[in-house]
């Protein structure tokens, strides 16, 4: 499913269903003139549909870069097809990722660059910033910020479960937006380390990170883009994190 988010930013997403609801597996595309950038490349499960959608969005352009939020198969399982179709594509991953062993070896190591949190990469006329991933289920995770569209690509963070009828819809197309319970369900499953976390400390860092740059859109891989009301959704995520942490505390009592 292809959706236009804003400016030259597109979302290509597939949906998997489960007992907690529907979960998106998304790829984001910045057309970026003649040097398009992919954020993640989706799952091998959805290879044919993702590649077809990417061809449609790119409309003959050759993507210059793929930035991986991290290398797990739901995020990078389709990389063999991407490399096969666009063999010169360059990949950027976190410096905490051991690319030789954590990225499928179909991508030549010479085409992988490692970036530290806080560094910038310029692609054509656009500069993308690597941001510390606050919520990571793999140490070599990174979030990515695009100042032009004011979008934070948040990897697994800000993911959510949703009823089937909301699949692929942006937050501003859903009455009331994404609810805390939707964030809670997803983050409870994904980030089991929350059992140890003191939520007020995590939430303070989330406030700090979000507050450091203008953000109009949060683009999670396991959700559709959150457009607008970023502070509201950040507060809902904080509520969700607090609820998950506190439920573990209750169990320990």
């Amino acid at each position, binding site marked *: 499913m292809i959706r236009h988010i804003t400016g030259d930013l597109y979302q290509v997403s597939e949906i998997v269903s489960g007992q907690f609801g529907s979960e998106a597996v998304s790829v984001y595309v910045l057309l970026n003139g003649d040097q398009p950038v992919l954020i993640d490349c989706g799952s091998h499960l959805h290879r044919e549909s993702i590649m077809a959608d990417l061809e449609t969005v790119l409309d003959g352009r050759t993507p210059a870069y793929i930035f991986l939020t991290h290398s797990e198969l739901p995020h990078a399982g389709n990389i063999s097809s991407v490399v096969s179709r666009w063999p010169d594509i360059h990949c950027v991953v976190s410096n905490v990722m051991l690319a030789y062993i954590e990225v499928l070896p179909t991508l030549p190591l010479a085409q992988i660059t490692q970036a530290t949190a806080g560094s910038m990469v310029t692609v054509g006329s656009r500069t993308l910033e690597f941001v510390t991933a606050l919520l990571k289920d793999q140490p070599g995770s990174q979030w990515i910020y695009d100042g032009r569209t004011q979008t934070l690509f948040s990897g697994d963070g800000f993911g959510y479960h949703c009823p089937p009828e909301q699949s692929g819809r942006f937050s501003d197309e859903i009455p009331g937006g994404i609810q805390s319970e939707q964030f809670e369900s997803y983050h409870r499953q994904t980030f089991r380390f929350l059992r*140890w976390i003191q939520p007020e400390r995590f939430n303070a860092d989330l406030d700090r990170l979000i507050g450091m740059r203008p953000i109009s859109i949060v683009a999670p891989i396991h959700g559709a883009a959150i457009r607008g009301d970023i502070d509201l959704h950040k507060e809902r995520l904080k509520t969700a994190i607090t609820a998950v942490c506190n439920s573990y505390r209750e169990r320990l009592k």
Partner: protein
Amino acid sequence: MSLPPDTVLFGEGLERVAVRPITADIYWITHCLGDLAQEIYRDYFSMLPDADQYSESRIVDYPFSAFLIVDERSMLIDTCGPRQQAATLQAIQHILGERPLDYIWISHVELPHAGNTPVIKRLYPQAEIITVAGGEHYQLHALDTARMVEPGETMTLGRYTVEMVDALFVDHGLSQWLYERTTGFFFSADWGHNLHAPACGECFQFLDEMLANDYSEELFVEDVKVNAWYQFPWLAWTDPDEIAAAVARLFDQYSVKIFAPSHGNVIRRDVGRFMPLLEEGMRRAAAMPFSHTWSF
């Protein structure tokens, strides 16, 4: 580079995998970089305040390991990564010979742990894949035929019985540890691992062999700290006392005689000596400021 005498090496460079018996029936199948470690790990350790301790004055490496328990039914514990696929298959076949592989037990879904599952399953189609319960999207990780198990469940392999252990310290949500009741073999996946120096001949050594030479308890604590800091950055939001208490409770619950992390040198002797060191390493990691990693 000289190998420990009972070690067999398959492949080379980025793809090499060694096999070494820990007991008569439990094998360590492990990849590390050796001479390539300095180049590969330089950027990785660059964030540390004392980065030169890991990539200059002491050049470190760490393994990516699987283990194989051979019994009436055999169990492979994790699979190594796709880049080591050919050597890993050779290693498994070297150990098993004509015997079948019955179980492929997965600690968590990351490529260095589970990435060879499909190809191993093709080679041993009767093998059952075992993953932790709680996940509903294993198909995204190419593990869709897995049987899911809960912490506390046991599987009898013959003389040996393995128990699924609640993974206390995790990166990926779907994680489990494993304990074998007869030998006291404890597999801790990403937690509790040291580093080793290829230049000191420490590749594929057991920890007692390292300590007999250049390695020390203080280095072990610092290595556990550094690895935990990288592996579990969420420690920055925890109470170090709670973390240390959890480690102490773990060792009260399980009579661990062999401590086998995915990414460290196996501790096969005197594990009790290392329990307080593992606790201290976690405590130090939890007390570290995250300003070095968290470039807001």
